[in-house]
C-alpha cells in the first residue's frame, strides 16, 4: 500500500469520496429520524451536562485569556493614535463577532469532539452499538441525535458565557492599567453591538456544534478494528471538526455580510 506513488493513489481518493458520501447519508439520517420516537430526553439532558456544564471552566479560562490579551495588545496600538477610548468598543466587537464564537468552538471541538469520537468508537468496537441494535433500542437516536442536540444547544450558550467573561477580562485590564470606570467601559462596549449582530454571530456556533457532534459521532460510529482505531477516530474527530468549523465560519460570515450588509 505504502509503496504506491501517491499521485496514482486513485483508490485513496475514491475511498475519501465514498466516506464523504457516507457522512452525507449519516447526516441525512439525523433529519429523518429526529422527528420520530424514541425521544431520548433524559439522555439529551445528560449529554448537555457532559458537553456544557463540564466545559464551563474551560470556556471561562479561554474567554478570560482572550479578553485580557486582546485588551493589552490593542491598548498600545490605539494609544499611538490617541484612540484609547474606543478600546471597549473594539474589544466588544472583535470578541462577540468573531474571536469569541470561533475560539470557543475550536476549544470545544477539542474537548467534545475527542470525547464523542472516543466514546462512540469504543462502543462500536466493544459491540455495544450492535447490542443496542439487536435489542431494537435504536442506537442512532440514543447516541447520535442526543449528542447533536446537546452540542447545538450548548455551543451558543457557552459562547455567550465566554464572550461575557472575555469582556470582563478586558475590563479588568483597563481598570488595572487605566482605572476605567465600569459604567463607562460597559456602556461604550455595548453601544457598538447591535442585537442582530449578537444573534447571528452567536447563533453560528450552533452550526459549529452541529459540525462537531455529527462529524465526531460519524467517525466513532463507523470505526472498524480495535483500540488503535478508536484513538485515531478521536484524533480525526478533532482535526476534521476544526477544519470544518473554519470553513463554515468563512461561509457563514460571507453569507451574513451579503444578507445584512452594513451601510
Amino acid at each position, binding site marked *: 500500500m505504502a509503496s504506491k506513488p501517491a499521485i496514482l493513489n486513485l483508490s485513496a481518493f475514491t475511498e475519501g469520496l465514498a466516506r464523504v458520501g457516507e457522512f452525507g447519508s449519516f447526516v441525512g439520517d439525523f433529519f429523518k429520524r429526529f422527528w420520530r420516537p424514541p425521544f431520548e430526553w433524559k439522555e439529551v439532558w445528560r449529554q448537555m451536562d457532559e458537553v456544557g456544564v463540564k466545559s464551563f471552566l474551560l470556556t471561562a479560562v479561554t474567554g478570560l485569556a482572550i479578553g485580557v490579551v486582546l485588551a493589552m495588545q490593542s491598548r498600545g496600538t490605539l494609544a499611538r493614535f490617541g484612540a484609547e477610548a474606543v478600546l471597549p468598543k473594539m474589544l466588544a466587537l472583535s470578541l462577540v463577532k468573531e474571536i469569541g464564537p470561533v475560539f470557543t468552538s475550536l476549544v470545544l471541538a477539542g474537548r467534545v469532539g475527542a470525547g464523542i469520537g472516543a466514546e462512540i468508537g469504543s462502543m462500536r468496537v466493544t459491540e*455495544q452499538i*450492535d447490542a443496542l441494535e439487536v*435489542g431494537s433500542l435504536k442506537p442512532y437516536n440514543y447516541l447520535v441525535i442526543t449528542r447533536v442536540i446537546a452540542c447545538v444547544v450548548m455551543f451558543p450558550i457557552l459562547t455567550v458565557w465566554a464572550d461575557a467573561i472575555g469582556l470582563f477580562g478586558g475590563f479588568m485590564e483597563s481598570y488595572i492599567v487605566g482605572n476605567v470606570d465600569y459604567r463607562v467601559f460597559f456602556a461604550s462596549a455595548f453601544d457598538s453591538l447591535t442585537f442582530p449582530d449578537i444573534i447571528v454571530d452567536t447563533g453560528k456556533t450552533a452550526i459549529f456544534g452541529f459540525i462537531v457532534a455529527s462529524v465526531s459521532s460519524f467517525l466513532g460510529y463507523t470505526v472498524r478494528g480495535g483500540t488503535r482505531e478508536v484513538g485515531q477516530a478521536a484524533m480525526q474527530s478533532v482535526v476534521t471538526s476544526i477544519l470544518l468549523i473554519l470553513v463554515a465560519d468563512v461561509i457563514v460570515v460571507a453569507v451574513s455580510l451579503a444578507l445584512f450588509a452594513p451601510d
Partner: protein
Amino acid sequence: MEAARSDETLRPATADGHAGPAWPLGKPWPEAQPLGSGPPPDDIMIEFRDLYKSFGEKHILRGVTMAIPKGVSTVIMGGSGTGKSVTIKHVVGLLKADQGEVWVHGENVDELSKDGLDQLRLKIGFLFQSGALFDSMTVYEQMDFVLKRHTDLDADGRKDRIMETLEWVNLPKTTSQYPSELSGGQRKRIGLARSIILQPDIMVYDEPTTGLDPISVRVVSNLINRLRDERGITSMTITHDLLCAEMISDHVFYLLDGVYAESGTLAEVAQSDKPEIREFFGDEYAMMFKTVRDGA
C-alpha cells in the same frame, strides 16, 4: 413436511430439569428447503439456505445450509476464526448475506423492513461473545432500559422482573455496579441476563461459558437447559467448551472451510471421519464415546 407437530417437539419439563429430546429421537434431522421456496414449515425456527458471506478477499461462509426446529438446543463448534460468530449474526440481521437466505420465525431476515427487523429482534435474545454491556449504565439500569422501552411494566413490575432474571444467573447483588466493576465471568452472565429479560423464543449464545469457572459453567449450562425446558426456547450456542456442549447440546453443527461439514449428536460429530474434526475433539474424547457406545 407435515406441520402442527409443535406440541410433541416441546419437551416436557421434568423434576430434575433433565428432559428428553425436543426433536424426537430417531426422527431424521430436518433438511433446509431449497432457495426461493418461501417460508420453511412452522416447526422450523431458523433456517439457512446456501448462505455466502465474504469480507473483501476473505470468503468466510461458503454455502451454509441448516434447519433448526423449535425448542431444540443446537451447538455450533469449529476452529477459531472460522466464521461461527459471523453465522449467528445473520440470525439477527447484524450482517447481511452476500448470497442465500436466512429464515427466522418464518421471515426472510434480509427482506424485512427496518421496523419488521426490530419486531423480529424482540423475539430473539442475543448474547455477544464480549458481553457487550453498556458501559455508562449500572447493571440495573441496563436491564431497566430494555424493559422500559419494550414493555408496559410499571416500576415495581420491572424491578421484580430484573431481580428474578438476576437470580437466574446467580448475581442478584450486582444491581448497582457498573460493568467495569464486574469480573469477566460476571459480565458474561449479566449479558446473558440482559438478553433473556424480554423472554424471547429464540436465544443465540456466543460462547456463553468462556472464561467461567467450572461451577459457573454448570450454572450457565443449566440455565440454558431450563430456558429450553421451561419456556420452549430454541437456541443456537457457539461453544468450545466440551462440558457445556455435553450438557446442553441436542444437536451439533461443526463449521469447517465455510460450510457446516458435520452435523449430529455430540458423540456422532466427535467421531467424525474428518481429520480436522478429530483433532478438534482429540482422539481420547472420541474414544470415550466409542467406549460408552460399545459398552452399552
